[in-house]
């Protein structure tokens, strides 16, 4: 079997030099997919014929001296909640079985315009609700580092596809950590941009005020390239920021001197953090200090309320966003029976949604319902404001905040399923960035008992470039991102 694909940057250079072809790259992707995915289960759908045709078109362009972008001819994967025209979109849910989207997500349109070749659609927790990809109706994806373990979630498939070297880049969505956490557990780079930086048009909504699409890759430099292709204002998304996307690659100077990094005091309060994670993250901070960054402690006093606020807000929004899955205009509808339309809705949704999705819809409905709105939803949004103020204050004292991505490395499949809160609590380090709309990246920083550990860099709103610069500077000085799963 062929070697795992290198970085996007390296592949683009090889394509430009004529040392390889887009077709060769796509064929290699499928070779590895065919060999690894039956066990890995990262992919829900593939589009072999179309991808090869697009690869050939890319090669033809290159032969004419036209290159659309550094991504031209590069194989990538999409999380199965980012719609593509003419392709299925299932969100790993029975209720969308058979659904084919008639339109492209803006991100997809931009990727295709850039010449990227989409080879398939990856597994996720159903409707992006989960942190382990165990909530997929199609069964879990396995962690390439240890098949008995979860790759994290909800974008577990995309993280695994990159970690296993099937594709050099993939896209996922992050609502409470769903890109950063699987990136950490799979030993790859995963980035959540500033809220509004990347269009949500065509991202099947989970929680509208928290969701963002973002890239997975092996390096921060790759993420910069990927982000350039997809970021920027979209008139189809009212929450899309008006600012045009800067040249992120140009910001990767390798220089962090003059930057102050804030180390989160409250991270130490987290019981449940393994010594190994704690050690790797501390080492990462020390490395950045050696690179010239100043380090000081910062506090986000409301950190410990983040999970509660997150789960109230996210489920409330989700309960409303998922109301459209009623079997009327698309998706699976239950068989006809007694009770008219109301009963049909109830059966359709009961049969179509998995248990976790139903639980979250119930919680979200409750949180918004009369008599509880103020105590739960409004209260959570107020706490959210306080958390944002915490960040504003912290960013007076530092340019970026570093902290662990997860309290522990990859857990075993099935380990967390019975305790309703266990998985939720593991999101403690990631949800704040979504609540505050901040850019955040997770980077591999070593192993803990043979399993990848990631650390996070969070930046001020719209300082995605700074966040990537710090991550890239770290990767120029270390080699943790080069580690591959044993295989």
């Amino acid at each position, binding site marked *: 079997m062929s070697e795992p694909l290198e970085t996007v940057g390296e592949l683009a250079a090889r394509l430009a030099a004529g040392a390889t072809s887009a077709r060769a790259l796509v064929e290699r992707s499928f070779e590895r997919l065919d060999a690894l995915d039956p066990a890995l289960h990262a992919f829900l759908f593939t589009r072999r014929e179309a991808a090869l045709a697009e690869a050939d078109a890319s090669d033809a362009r290159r032969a004419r001296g036209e290159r659309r972008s550094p991504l031209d001819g590069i194989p990538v994967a999409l999380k199965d909640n980012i719609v593509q025209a003419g392709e299925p979109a299932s969100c790993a849910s029975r209720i969308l079985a058979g659904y084919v989207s008639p339109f492209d997500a803006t991100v997809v349109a931009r990727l295709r315009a850039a010449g990227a070749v989409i080879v398939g659609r990856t597994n996720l927790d159903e409707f992006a609700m989960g942190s382990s990809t165990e909530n997929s109706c199609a069964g879990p994806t396995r962690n390439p580092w240890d098949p008995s373990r979860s790759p994290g979630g909800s974008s577990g498939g995309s993280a695994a596809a990159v970690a296993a070297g099937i594709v050099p880049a993939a896209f996922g969505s992050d609502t409470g950590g769903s890109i950063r956490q699987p990136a950490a557990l799979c030993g790859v780079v995963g980035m959540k941009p500033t809220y509004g930086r990347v269009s949500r048009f065509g991202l099947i909504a989970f929680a509208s005020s928290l969701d963002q699409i973002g890239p997975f890759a092996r390096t921060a430099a790759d993420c910069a390239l990927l982000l350039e292709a997809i970021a920027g204002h979209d*008139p189809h998304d009212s929450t899309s920021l008006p600012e045009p996307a800067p040249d992120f690659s140009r910001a990767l100077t390798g220089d962090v001197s003059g930057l102050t990094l804030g180390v989160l005091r409250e991270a130490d309060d987290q019981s449940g953090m393994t010594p190994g994670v704690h050690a790797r993250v501390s080492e990462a901070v020390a490395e950045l200090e050696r690179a010239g960054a100043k380090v000081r402690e910062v506090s986000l006093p409301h950190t410990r309320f983040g999970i509660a606020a997150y789960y109230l807000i996210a489920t409330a929004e989700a309960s409303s966003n998922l109301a*459209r899955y009623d079997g009327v205009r698309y998706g699976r509808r239950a068989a006809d029976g007694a009770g008219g339309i109301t009963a049909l809705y109830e059966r359709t949704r009961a049969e179509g949604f998995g248990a976790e999705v139903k639980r979250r819809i119930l919680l979200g409905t409750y949180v918004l319902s009369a008599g509880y709105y103020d105590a739960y939803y409004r209260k959570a949004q107020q706490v959210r404001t306080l958390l944002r103020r915490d960040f504003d204050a912290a960013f007076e004292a530092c340019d970026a905040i570093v902290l662990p991505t997860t309290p522990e490395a990859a857990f075993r499949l099935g380990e967390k399923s019975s305790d309703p809160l266990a998985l939720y609590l593991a999101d403690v380090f990631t949800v704040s960035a979504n609540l505050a709309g901040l850019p955040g990246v997770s980077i591999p920083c070593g192993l803990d008992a043979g399993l990848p550990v990631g650390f996070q860099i969070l930046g001020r709103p719209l300082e995605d470039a700074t966040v990537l610069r710090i991550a890239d500077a770290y990767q120029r000085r270390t080699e943790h991102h080069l580690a591959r799963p044993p295989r």
Partner: protein
Amino acid sequence: MSAEFETVIGLEVHCQLRTRTKLFSAADVSYGDAPNHHVTAVCLALPGALPVLNDAAVELAARAALVTHCKLHGLSVFARKNYFYPDLPKGYQISQYEEPLATGGWLEIDTPAGGARRIGITRIHMEEDAGKSLHEAGDPETQIDLNRAGVPLVEIVSEPDLRSPEEAGAYLRKLRQLLRWVEASDADMEKGQLRCDANVSLRPRGETRLGTRTEIKNLNSFRFVEAAIRAEVARQAEVLGGGGRIQQATLGFEPERGRLFVMRLKENADDYRYFPDPDLIPLRLSEERIEHIRAALPELPDERERRFSGELGLAAADARTLVASRALADWFESAARAHGNAKHVANWVLRDVLAALKERDAELEAVRLAPEGFAALLRLVDAGRVTARSARSLLGELLFAGGDPEALVRERGLEAVSDAGALEAAVEEVLAANAKAVASFAAGDAKSLNFLMGQVMRRTGGKADPARVRELLAERLARR
């Protein structure tokens, strides 16, 4: 109805805004087409679709608020109203809840008793329309058409200030006039562009607390609104009069039988779980924009009416009638300015033009004759070049087909006989041929003059100016 109860009515009006496209999607607004021929991914609530606000809808909604003297808020918030229904594709309607576009307005109606009353308007907010469910008799299925889903609406909620079905009708007519005046909506009830729900309750006279109310929905004409309210008031009075209590309910009205029926008993309030829509940014209207919209409003009906009676010297009732629609007011005023004598033009418009419109069941918008043309016609009459009667006979045609009055008069050979010689000759001939009538007149029978006049008019084919004829006859008879 017994004097012991007071009727309390509040109206909720939904009005379609006159935009080309929907509130949150770029699908065009259309009426009557085949199902789902005017939809986008957003209208269908496809996975991944997102709403983007139509700026023109904001403009028109703001006009509606200003013309009803509401306070336009600089910040209003779109909220989701969550419920399940097949014609509601997202499973929620994007509306406004705690922070609506406008609050605290009023409009004035004429009461049946003859006076004016201010009716308060609690709030105006923007929201999207739902699609349509089509049931055919005997069909076990319902068809869903989403062409209408997402069309921009304003919901206008009145205070419970109305005290009779007639006042309710007056309020609706006034509202319709105002909305059409500022071109916020065509407000055609038959096309469903204006829909009214009525909240009706009774309370003992002197009581300030509101009684239990019922809601009557799906009323689609002014007459039905009045009739339905009348029926409900009677029903409630009977229940209360008999010592019973009113049960909260949603009612429908069958116009053919004049009967109310229960659609739904409302034991519990619906739980719509409103929350601010996270896909949308709160609507910010700057002071500048509000002033700009206000400045761009045409002169409003009340001001126009005052100007018609003040500046143009028209009687109050006439001025009121002429502002029934902006089209009518504009047309009249242009004609009056072109002609010079506003009262004279007003008389003709009020009497003859309105009659012609009524005969065809048409609105002023159907008129093709330019106001200057109408003025020209009147000037022909003033100059005696055509009789008023001839002019009236041509009016229908001129109004609805347009044309040049002078040319048409000539074409039809309707020029008045005003040539003094021809007229005198006709008068002489008639006097000569009707010696008996001449004699009766001389004997004191004034009515013979009318007879003789009729004869002259016939002889001139109705083309002589009656006033001139009368003058000549009188003169000649006096000489005899």
